[in-house]
């Protein structure tokens, strides 16, 4: 049995590197193990031991390739072709035409100077949304996690309460909040009860963006709180006891101990929140429809509408925009990897 020659490849081995036998195993199981073993041994002899890990990766790689890499490739093909046809073979090649159209701007800081101004409005809205949402999300999640990590009464109940919205579908979340925020909604009823005037929360650009961010934070905060809470609980308590014995002020403990030790979790939370914010679509789409005007139109909604809502379904332009979005998300992921690698090294 060649597999036993290297201890690292055996499922369990004694200190001398010899394969341990499953003494208690049923004879049928032992027989089955032999049946599985012989083609593997034969394959290993044929291709060599060093190539064997790739054999085990192959099925997963094929699955991944089929459902991830092939669609990415098809999307790229769409982005360099034009016309209304669906099948790539029927679509005329336009080269970088779709990209050139997207990036045709007199000034990149003024969306109205761009030929495809909706794309740029979506980009700017997404950036604005991401900036404020990530700050609010990470800040509030951290605060909540710290409070939930304290020895307070009903801690389990509060942990559940903050996690409940995560279990809801984003569409349900948006519909609940739409019901609260509409003209005759719960919030306006409260304002009226206090002798105030009704506010059109979803029809004023500033308010609409505020509520889009608020609802998004409300819906997803529990998930990030959970990650940070796990990080906080992994910090050894004797460090805090030592700090207490030294009479270190609380803010200093937080700044010098908690935050540095929580940093790997915070990086994960920040990057995950960033990626999710850039991809935001469903809850904002249901809540505001991208309006008023285009004040809450996100890049993903632009891609969806360009590809599906218009009478001329412009798959090429939508694909080009999604390639751009994909590059941004890839850059964010690389940033996360760089940060976490640096931290672990």
């Amino acid at each position: 049995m060649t597999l036993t020659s290297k201890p690292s490849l055996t499922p369990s081995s004694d200190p001398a590197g010899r394969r341990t036998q499953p003494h208690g195993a049923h004879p049928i199981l032992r027989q089955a193990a032999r049946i599985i073993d012989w083609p593997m041994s034969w394959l290993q002899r044929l291709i060599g031991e060093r190539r064997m890990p790739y054999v085990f990766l192959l099925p997963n790689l094929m699955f991944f390739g089929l459902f991830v890499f092939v669609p990415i490739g098809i999307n790229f093909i769409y982005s360099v072709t034009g016309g209304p046809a669906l099948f790539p073979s029927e679509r005329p090649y336009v080269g970088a035409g779709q990209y050139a159209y997207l990036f045709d701007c007199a000034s990149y800081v003024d969306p109205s100077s761009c030929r495809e101004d909706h794309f740029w409005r979506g980009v700017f809205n997404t950036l604005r949304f991401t900036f404020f949402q990530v700050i609010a999300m990470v800040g509030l999640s951290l605060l909540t996690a710290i409070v939930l990590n304290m020895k307070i009464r009903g801690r389990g109940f509060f942990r559940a309460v903050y996690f409940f919205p995560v279990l809801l579908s984003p569409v349900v979340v948006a519909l609940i909040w739409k019901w609260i925020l509409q003209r005759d909604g719960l919030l306006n009823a409260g304002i009226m009860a206090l002798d105030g005037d009704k506010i059109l929360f979803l029809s004023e650009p500033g308010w609409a963006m505020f509520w889009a961010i608020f609802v998004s934070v409300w819906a997803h905060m529990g998930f990030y709180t959970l990650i940070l809470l796990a990080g906080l609980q992994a910090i050894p308590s004797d460090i805090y006891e030592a700090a207490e014995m030294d009479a270190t002020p609380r803010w200093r403990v937080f700044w010098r101990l908690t935050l540095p030790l929580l940093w790997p979790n915070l990086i994960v939370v920040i990057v995950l929140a960033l990626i999710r914010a850039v991809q935001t679509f469903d809850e904002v789409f249901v809540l505001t429809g991208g309006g008023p005007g285009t004040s809450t139109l996100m890049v993903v909604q632009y891609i969806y509408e360009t590809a599906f809502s218009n009478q001329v379904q412009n798959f090429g332009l939508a694909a080009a925009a999604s390639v751009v979005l994909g590059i941004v998300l890839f850059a964010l992921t690389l940033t996360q990897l760089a940060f976490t690698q640096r931290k672990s090294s």
Partner: protein
Amino acid sequence: MKGTKMLLGCAVLAASLAVGYAQAQTTLRMTWYSDGNEGEVMSDLLRRFEEQNKDIKVVLDQVPFKAINENLPVQLAAGQGPDLARVADLGGVARYMLDLRPHLKDAAYFETSFGPFLEWMRLPGDTSSIPGYMTQLTLTGPFVNKTLFEQANVAMPGPKATWEEWAKAAKDVAAKVQAPFPVAIDRSGHRFFSLAITQGAKVFNEKGEPAVVDEGFKKAAQLVFDWHKNGVMSKELWGSVAGTAYRGANDEFKNAQVVVYESGSWQIGQFDKTIGADFDWVAVPTPCGPANCSGMPGGAALVAIKTTQHPKEVARLVEYLASEKVAEEFYERSLFVPGHLGLAKKGLEYKAASPQAKAALKVFSDGVAQLSPVANKLQGYVNNRVIFNAVISRLGQTIAGEATLDEAYKRITADVEQQIAERNKK
């Protein structure tokens, strides 16, 4: 033992008969959306069809209107469509429709009964194909909450009143009864053009190509813009969503928050059912502008899809549903303006409708005679949704304060040109 064998034998025989029957039966899939009760009516009619045609089974897939406009075209482009579909964007899906003529027993009946509307389902240059029939003819027009006018003690403008007169009256009423929406116009291209054509919008140039922004169009856009500024219209409709999204005010109208609601005849069925005796509502003729008093026609057609494997069976089903008696029952029970010339001429009784629904149907039916040629041409134009979408998207931006009207006009022209060029890429 003998009994068991006999039972087994009978079961085998029954199973083989069932298999044989199932093999002989053709299943047709029909994708359908409903504005009111027409899905139920269609189910009834299909059940009767199946009783008379044992070799055909029809599966009615009921989907939302959004799925018809957004998902179905992609499905059709991929060659995966149903056998039949009820569609509203007739020009947009015309290239996927099957010409039923070779399979129809009496193609002349379709020409006689649905002739002008068949043109809406044809591609440019095609003058003879018959892909289906109109399940309804719709017409845009205003619904008025008469009770609010009475409560405010304001007289309703007469039949030839202008849009401005209606706007003023509606604002007076809303101020007196504290209604939040004096005038509501659906965020829809059809609704906007029912206003624009009365203001003199021509939409096309002499060559028949789109020339959307002209003086008539600008007058209408200015009216909508001003009405949002001076409180005749609320931002909650046109200003509350982005891009090409449709936004209606039927819920607000049903809740008596709207004084005058510009929508379409397909709302009659649901208003009749949901408003009931809560308040009096009436449909009134389309207000007039300097050019005319025309509404915009539209409608939904049941069409055969090119990829069907059973064109003969599809033709049989369409012939049954489009036959005068069956179509009459469908229009009557669903409270639709008939998309059948003979029935329109004859007039329908609408036995199940309330007196106010009957009166509304009469107003809309009469409105067909008022239609401007521009309105008919726009409805029949294959790329009309390109125009509609560009208009609502850009005017929505002006209402939200993101762009001026002049900027919107330039963008509308550019959007229409770009999208039509994209469609023509081969």
